[in-house]
């Protein structure tokens, strides 16, 4: 067992981890390591390679503003192109040297004496960091759902996030379980290949049309020659999506307009009244993730496709039995049933001050301060943390704000030689009281069941506001919200003019508490 010491340990080499790495390099910090359990970068986009996989946010917006790509081939790119963009970022910013592939993190523990995170992997290696960044991603883990009899099925079982590219669907009897964001992309592709495709739906989603287009050559040339034009186009798309919050985050007359647009899309594409009824959601637009597709409804109406809305009673050796008493037999079952989203725990044990375990504190739902920090776990930063999910805009816009916040905070830790930077529990509590109060008025908390909510209906996933609001709060690194503790070896003056030295808590540390008047550090 060996140890490696860095200023920052990043866990995960997906969009968030690599974005953090780029910004660290740009800030002058090259003393970090990225731990990646897979053998290549890309995270969610490396894992989700099912046929039809694509982003449902325009590529111009679903990319980093600090790593623009002028060559997107379509309005909404497929997974292969997005993965290509991620690979290109690694090359362009020289990130490969920071990545440790096949490094599966099994635990992270804060060492209070020397203020470092000890991150251990399953090969026994320990990585020490003055700060740690959890960039493991909310959509990183996928497993087959717990459906009665699933183990008895003798045919092939494929999860959408673990696609088997060697399986030939041509002429096969195929079942797809699930009708969420992945399913509406998979189904049109499989319908073209399968002899018989049966789609099992629990509750229908709301589908809006996709305004996809092939990017003209002149646009690519223009974007490459004058990046300012691409930034302007990106800005325009940002504000279009931002305005959608008015209908998708809160129930307003615009919500009704979105529902009508989705309803018109359904009526235009589906003629049969009963099928239309089966595909009509009972919840407000935005309550569950909106689905974007032009070819999902037509695929369901192909002669070789059938939609089943009966509850699944059991999976049998040969197929699926539903509660109408009928069995349908299949060669393969595709599970488009989503991800094991960490709403109430952590992907591996995270131990903070005094041996506290984060998963135990999050048993009823995750909470953090500004989605980034959790009190009692100093120097630990989350990307896509609790209450950071967007319902209407690009996740990468949110991620950029998180990354910049993290880069500033980690710089503060090294520049001021801090032993720990821990968010105050009262500040975190007050922040979450406010967040939960605001969430009450959102579409996500309007009564439907979704992956945003825990079984108890707690929403620890979504941010109740505009992307602009979210970015603004992260633009402000307010030191008064933290307890900053300096290393015993450091000069107290490093922590700021208004710091007050109090009695040491640990053998070799002194605690520096900020007064309420301390000037916030800004960008």
């Amino acid at each position, binding site marked *: 067992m060996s140890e490696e010491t860095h200023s920052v340990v990043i866990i995960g080499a997906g969009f968030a981890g690599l974005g953090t790495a780029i910004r660290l390099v740009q800030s002058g910090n090259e003393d970090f390591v990225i731990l990646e359990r897979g053998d290549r970068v890309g995270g969610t986009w490396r894992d989700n390679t099912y046929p039809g996989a694509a982003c449902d946010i325009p590529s111009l917006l679903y990319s980093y503003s600090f790593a623009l790509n002028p060559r997107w081939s379509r309005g909404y790119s497929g997974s292969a192109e997005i993965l290509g963009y991620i690979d290109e970022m690694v090359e362009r910013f020289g990130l490969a040297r920071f990545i440790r592939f096949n490094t599966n993190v099994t635990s992270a523990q804060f060492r209070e004496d020397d203020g470092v995170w000890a991150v251990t992997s399953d090969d026994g290696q320990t990585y020490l960091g003055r700060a740690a960044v959890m960039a493991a991603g909310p959509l990183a883990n996928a497993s087959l759902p717990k459906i009665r009899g699933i183990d008895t099925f003798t045919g092939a079982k494929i999860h959408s996030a673990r696609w088997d590219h060697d399986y030939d669907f041509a002429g096969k*009897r195929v079942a797809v379980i699930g009708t969420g964001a992945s399913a509406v992309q998979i189904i049109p592709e499989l319908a073209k290949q399968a002899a018989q495709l049966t789609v099992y739906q629990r509750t229908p989603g709301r589908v809006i049309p996709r305004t996809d287009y092939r990017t003209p050559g002149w646009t690519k040339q223009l974007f490459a020659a004058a990046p300012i034009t691409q930034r302007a186009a990106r800005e325009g798309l940002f504000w279009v999506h931002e305005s959608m919050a008015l209908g998708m985050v809160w129930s307003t007359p615009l919500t009704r307009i979105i529902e009508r647009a989705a309803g018109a899309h359904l009526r235009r594409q589906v003629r049969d009244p*009963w*099928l239309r009824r089966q595909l009509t959601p009972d919840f407000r637009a935005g309550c569950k993730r909106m689905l974007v597709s032009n070819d999902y409804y037509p695929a369901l109406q192909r002669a070789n496709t059938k939609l089943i809305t009966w*509850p699944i009673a*059991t999976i*049998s050796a040969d197929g699926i*039995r539903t*509660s109408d008493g*009928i069995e*349908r037999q299949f060669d393969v079952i595709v599970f488009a049933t989503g991800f094991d989203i960490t709403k109430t725990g952590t992907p591996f044990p995270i131990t903070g001050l005094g041996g506290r375990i984060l998963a135990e504190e999050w048993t009823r739902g995750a909470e953090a301060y500004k989605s980034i920090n959790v009190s009692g776990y100093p120097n630990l930063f989350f990307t896509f943390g609790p209450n950071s999910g967007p319902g209407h805009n690009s996740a990468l816009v949110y991620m950029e704000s998180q990354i910049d916040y993290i880069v500033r905070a980690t710089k503060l830790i090294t520049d001021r030689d801090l032993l720990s930077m821990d968010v105050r529990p009262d500040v975190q509590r007050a922040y979450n009281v406010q967040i939960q109060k605001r969430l009450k008025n959102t579409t996500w908390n309007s009564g439907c069941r979704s992956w945003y909510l825990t079984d108890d209906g707690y929403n620890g996933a979504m941010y109740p506001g505009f992307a602009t609001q979210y970015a603004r709060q992260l633009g402000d690194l307010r030191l008064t919200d933290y307890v900053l503790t300096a290393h015993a070896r450091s000069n107290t003056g490093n922590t700021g003019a208004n710091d007050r030295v109090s009695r040491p808590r640990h053998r070799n540390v002194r605690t520096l508490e900020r007064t309420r008047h301390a000037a916030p550090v800004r960008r």
Partner: protein
Amino acid sequence: MALDLDAMLVKIGERQWALADIDWDAPGADKITAEQWPGLKAFMADLVWIENVGARGFAAMAKLAPTETLADIYRYFHAEEQRHANAELALMRRWGMLDGDDLPEPNVNIRMAIEWLDRFADDMPLSVLGTVIPMLEVALDGALLKFLMDEVKDPVCHQVFEKINADESRHLAVDFQVLEILGNARLRKLLIESVGKTLTPGLLIGVLMYIPLLNRMRNKIVDMGLSEERLYVAMNRFKNVGERSPGTRRVPTYQVLKWHADMVVNRKHPYHLLANSMVWMSDRVPAKVFGPVPTWFKELTYEPVARETLEQAS
């Protein structure tokens, strides 16, 4: 004691069965007597469609349910009624009552019920379907199915109806719990809902559809030899269970249905002059007034394994 609907949902999930669980070729099909056969055929054909119509009723209730748990339960019940219809169809096939692959023709009152359900059911208050459905289920469970068990000696028939009865008893437990919940609403709300939402053209048309449908079924089974006493017993059960709960008694639609059920089971009641003339009139409704049969109506099957997914299809 109040029923725990969450626990009931789990229980329902655990008690699912499939047509494939039954050996449809097991001996005993010949126990249907030649005398029984024509009456039984006509009765089973109606029963299949009544179950199917009941299924559609639960589909509407799933949309009207005030909680996700209840919506999930109604989604199961929707499917279970369909399963009952499928199983009864499979029995008809076993007894040689199907003409090739063709499903039996629904009678004119069933067609009316289909039209009504498709047009109005999703917009009815929960209390209307929430009262009508338990009433029909009590009649089905308490009178008709017991009658079948007594009259038909085929062991497969018994096996099927034991399963159906077990499902129906769970349906009734939930139905009466929901009536209780509905009845516990404030009286003012109950009255507003009864008068404002219930007395709609949709409901009035529903009444005109419901009266002859029920009487046609009633007459048919009495003609088959079912004693009226059994119907009394079944209806009394509806009343006894309902009267036990103060909440249920406060539901106006329950009171109306109870009063109506009393008239239906009493052959001598003048109500039958009206109801039977409505049956007579409905027989004279030309088929072309009905729109195309909705696609949900064509989902019935007697095949335990859906034909399009059988191995040879690939």
